[in-house]
C-alpha cells in the first residue's frame, strides 16, 4: 500500500487570511462587469482557478455567506456577499472555446473587482 498525507502541511499563516470586516451589503449589481482577482491563496479557497483574472458579468446577486478561506483557516464566520457571474466561453478558453456555451460561476465578493 502506498501512503498519502491525510492533510497537507499548512501553507497558510493566520495572518495571511484577509482580515476584512464582515460585509452583507453587495457592492456589485446585476449587469456590472467584474474581473476575478488573480489571487493564489495557499490553502482552502472556493475560487475556481479557471476564472482567475477573467472578466464576467454579474447575473445574480445572492446571499451573504462566510468567506471560505477565513472559515477554513481562522475558524471564524466572516460574511461576504456572493454572486452568480456569467463568463463567455471565449474569455475563459480563448480559441479552444466551444461556441454558444457560457459558464456561470458563483463567487464571493472578495474575489471580485470592478472591470
Amino acid at each position, binding site marked *: 500500500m502506498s501512503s498519502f498525507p491525510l492533510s497537507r502541511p499548512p501553507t497558510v499563516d493566520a495572518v495571511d487570511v484577509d482580515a476584512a470586516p464582515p460585509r452583507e451589503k453587495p457592492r456589485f449589481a446585476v449587469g456590472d462587469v467584474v474581473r476575478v482577482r488573480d489571487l493564489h491563496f495557499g490553502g482552502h479557497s472556493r475560487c475556481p482557478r479557471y476564472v482567475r483574472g477573467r472578466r464576467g458579468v454579474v447575473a445574480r446577486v445572492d446571499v451573504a455567506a462566510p468567506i471560505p478561506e477565513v472559515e477554513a483557516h481562522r475558524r471564524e464566520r466572516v460574511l461576504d456577499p456572493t454572486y452568480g457571474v456569467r463568463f463567455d466561453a471565449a474569455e475563459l478558453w480563448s480559441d479552444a472555446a466551444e461556441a454558444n456555451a457560457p459558464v456561470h*460561476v458563483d463567487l464571493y465578493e472578495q474575489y471580485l473587482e470592478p472591470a
Partner: protein
Amino acid sequence: MSDDHAHHPEPLTDVERRARALEELLTEKGIVSAEFIDQVVETYAQDIGPMNGAKVVARAWVDPEYKQRLLADGTAAIAELGIGGPEGDYIVAVENTPDVHNVVVCTLCSCYPWPVLGLPPTWYKSPPYRSRMVREPRTVLAEMGCDVPDDVEIRVWDSSAEMRYLVLPERPPGTDGVSEEALAATVTRDTMIGVARP
C-alpha cells in the same frame, strides 16, 4: 460503512482509502458515529432522491403560476411541496427552452441539491466530468448521449458557492392530457442535472 461482503474485494482507490481514514478518525474521536453515517447514506439512498425533484418538475409543467414562483425563488417554491434540508438552503431552478439547455457541475467538489436529487452519482464527482463540463460542454454532453443542436445555447452552472441548481427540463411534446403524477414518473435524475433531454 461495511464492504466485507465480497470474497475478493476490489482494491480501494486512493480516494476511497482517504475517505475511510477520515471516517475512522471521526468515529475514533467521537465526532460522528458509524451508525450516523450509515443512516445518512440510507436516508438519501432510499427516502430522498430524484423523485422529489421529479415532483417539482411535474408541478411546474402543469401549473404555470407554480413555474413562475419556481423560477423566481426555487427554495421557496420547492418548500411549498414540503421539500427542503441540507444542501438545499438556496436552490436555483434554471429552465430549458427551445433555445437554451442548462447543465450543472461543481468543478471544486461535488455540490449538488440533495433535497431534490438525493446524493450525487459517481460520475458527477469524477475529475473528468468536473473539469471538462466547463471547458467543452457540448462535446461532453454528446459523449454522454445528449446531443444539443449547435444553435441551442448551453448554459453551464458551476455551483462553486452557496447556490444549488435544479434544471427544469422541457415538457415532452404530446403530453397534454397526462396527469401530474404520470408526468413525474417520466422525469429522470439526469434530465434535472442537464446531461439528458426528455
